[in-house]
C-alpha cells in the first residue's frame, strides 16, 4: 500500500508536475536565447490536455497492439523508475541490492517503446527514424554504463543507489573528484542523447523526416509520449543528481541546493540543444564510441586508481 502511494504521488504526480515545469523552462529558455518572449507557464499542460481532447487516429497499415501499447509501456516504465529514484533518495537504507542496474534498464525502455511504436505505425519515415533511434541507443549506452560504473567504483563496488548516496554523504559528492567530473560530463551528453534533443535528434528531425518516430501518433497516444518525454526530463537529471551530486534532501538549504542543481542541469541541456546543429547518425556513433567512451574509460581508470 505504501509503495502504491509512492507510485501515484511521487512517481506519477510529482514527477509529472516537475517534468512539465522543466519542459516549460526548456521552452522559455530557448525563446529567451533566441530573443523571443516564449510560451506561458502552463503551456506544456495545455499541450497535454489538448492532445487528450483530440481524435486518436490509427493508420490502416499499422499493427494495432504494439502501436497502442508502446506509449503506455513507456509511460509506466518512467513512472516506475522515478518512483525508485524518489524512494532511494528519501529512504537510502530501504533500497534493494542491484537497483542501479534496474534503473539503467528501465531508463532504456522509453527509447525502445518509441522504436516499437514507430515500426508498428507502418510509415516509411517513422521506420527510418526508428532505425536511427536504435543506432542512437547503441551509441550512448556504452559510455553511459561506464560513467555510472565510476560512481559504483567510488562507492566500494556497491550496486545500490542507497550506498552511493551514503558514500557521498560521508566523503563529499562524487562530481568534485577528477573521475567523477569526467563521468558527469559523459553522463550529461548521454542524457542529451537519451532525451533525443539537438545535437542528437536525428530520429525525429522535424525539418528532415517530419517528427520521424512520432509521425503517425495523434491524440491521446501522442499525449502519453509527450508526458513520457516531460517525465524523463525530470527522471534523467534526477538520476544524475543522485549518482554524482549527492541527491536532494528535504531540509532547508539542502533543498535549495538540490533544486538549483536540477534547474542547472536542465538549463545546461537546453543551452547545449540551442547552440549546436543536428549531427548525422554516423557522427553521433563516432562521437559516443570515440571521445565519450575514451573519457569514460579514463574516468573508470582514475576511480580504480583512487580506490
Amino acid at each position, binding site marked *: 500500500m505504501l509503495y502504491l502511494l509512492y507510485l501515484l504521488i511521487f512517481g506519477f504526480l510529482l514527477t509529472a508536475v516537475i517534468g512539465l515545469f522543466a519542459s516549460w523552462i526548456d521552452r522559455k529558455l530557448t525563446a529567451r536565447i*533566441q530573443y523571443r*518572449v516564449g*510560451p506561458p507557464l502552463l503551456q506544456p499542460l*495545455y499541450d497535454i490536455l*489538448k492532445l487528450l*481532447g483530440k481524435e486518436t487516429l490509427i493508420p490502416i497499415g499499422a499493427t494495432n497492439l504494439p502501436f497502442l501499447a508502446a506509449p503506455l509501456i513507456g509511460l509506466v516504465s518512467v513512472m516506475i523508475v522515478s518512483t525508485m529514484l524518489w524512494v532511494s533518495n528519501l529512504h537510502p537504507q530501504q533500497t534493494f541490492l542491484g537497483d542501479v542496474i534496474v534503473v539503467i534498464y528501465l531508463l532504456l525502455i522509453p527509447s525502445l517503446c518509441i522504436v516499437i511504436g514507430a515500426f508498428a505505425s507502418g510509415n516509411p519515415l517513422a521506420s527510418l527514424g526508428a532505425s536511427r533511434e536504435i543506432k542512437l541507443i547503441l551509441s550512448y549506452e556504452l559510455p553511459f554504463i561506464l560513467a555510472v560504473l565510476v560512481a559504483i567504483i567510488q562507492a566500494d563496488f556497491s550496486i545500490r543507489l542507497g550506498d552511493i548516496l551514503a558514500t557521498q554523504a560521508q566523503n563529499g559528492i562524487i562530481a568534485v573528484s577528477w573521475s567523477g567530473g569526467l563521468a558527469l560530463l559523459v553522463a550529461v551528453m548521454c542524457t542529451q542523447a537519451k532525451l533525443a534533443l539537438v545535437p542528437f535528434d536525428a530520429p525525429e528531425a522535424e525539418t528532415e523526416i517530419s517528427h520521424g518516430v512520432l*509521425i503517425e*501518433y*495523434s491524440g491521446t497516444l501522442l499525449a502519453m509520449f509527450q508526458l513520457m518525454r516531460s517525465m524523463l526530463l525530470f527522471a534523467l537529471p534526477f538520476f544524475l543528481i543522485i549518482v554524482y551530486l549527492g541527491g536532494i534532501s528535504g531540509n532547508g538549504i539542502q533543498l535549495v541546493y538540490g533544486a538549483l542543481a536540477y534547474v542547472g542541469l536542465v538549463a545546461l541541456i537546453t543551452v547545449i540543444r540551442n547552440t549546436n546543429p543536428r549531427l548525422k547518425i554516423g557522427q553521433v556513433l563516432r562521437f559516443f564510441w570515440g571521445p565519450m567512451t575514451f573519457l569514460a574509460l579514463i574516468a573508470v581508470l582514475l576511480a580504480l586508481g583512487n580506490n
Partner: protein
Amino acid sequence: MGILDHAFLKSLWVFHLATGSCNNCDIEILDCFTPRHDIERFGMQLTGSIKHADVLLVTGAVNRQCIPRLKRIYEQMPNPRLVVAIGECALSRGVFVHSYNCPLPLDHVIPVDVYIPGCPPRPEAIIAGLIKLIEQKKNPKDQPQA
C-alpha cells in the same frame, strides 16, 4: 466551454500547406515564428506531421493537381480541426481566377474558418486573423454576422 476546449485554443499547432502558391505567403507565415513576431506566445507551434496539427494553414490558388492531395491531407487531420486560408490566391484564386488550372476556390473544396486577405498578408495580419479565430471560438455568439 470545457477545460479541453480551453486547452485546445491555448495550444494550436499549425501545419503549413502550399497548394501552388508563389512562396510569398509561405515566407510571411514563417515570419510569424521569428523573434520579432513570436507566435509561440499564444502557444502556437509549427508541426511537421499533419497527425499532430490542429490548424491547417493553406496558401496558394488550389490547382487541379493539388485538389485530391488537399482533401487527403484534410482527412488525415484529427478532430477538432480548423482551416485558415492565407493570401489572395487561397481566398479567391487571385490572378489565376480565369485560369484553366484552378477550377475551384479553396472554400469549395474544404470548409474554411478564417480568411486572411493580402498579397501576401503581413505577419501582423496573420497573427490578428489567428487571434480572431480564437476569440470567435471562445464566444461564438458575440461576433457580428459578416
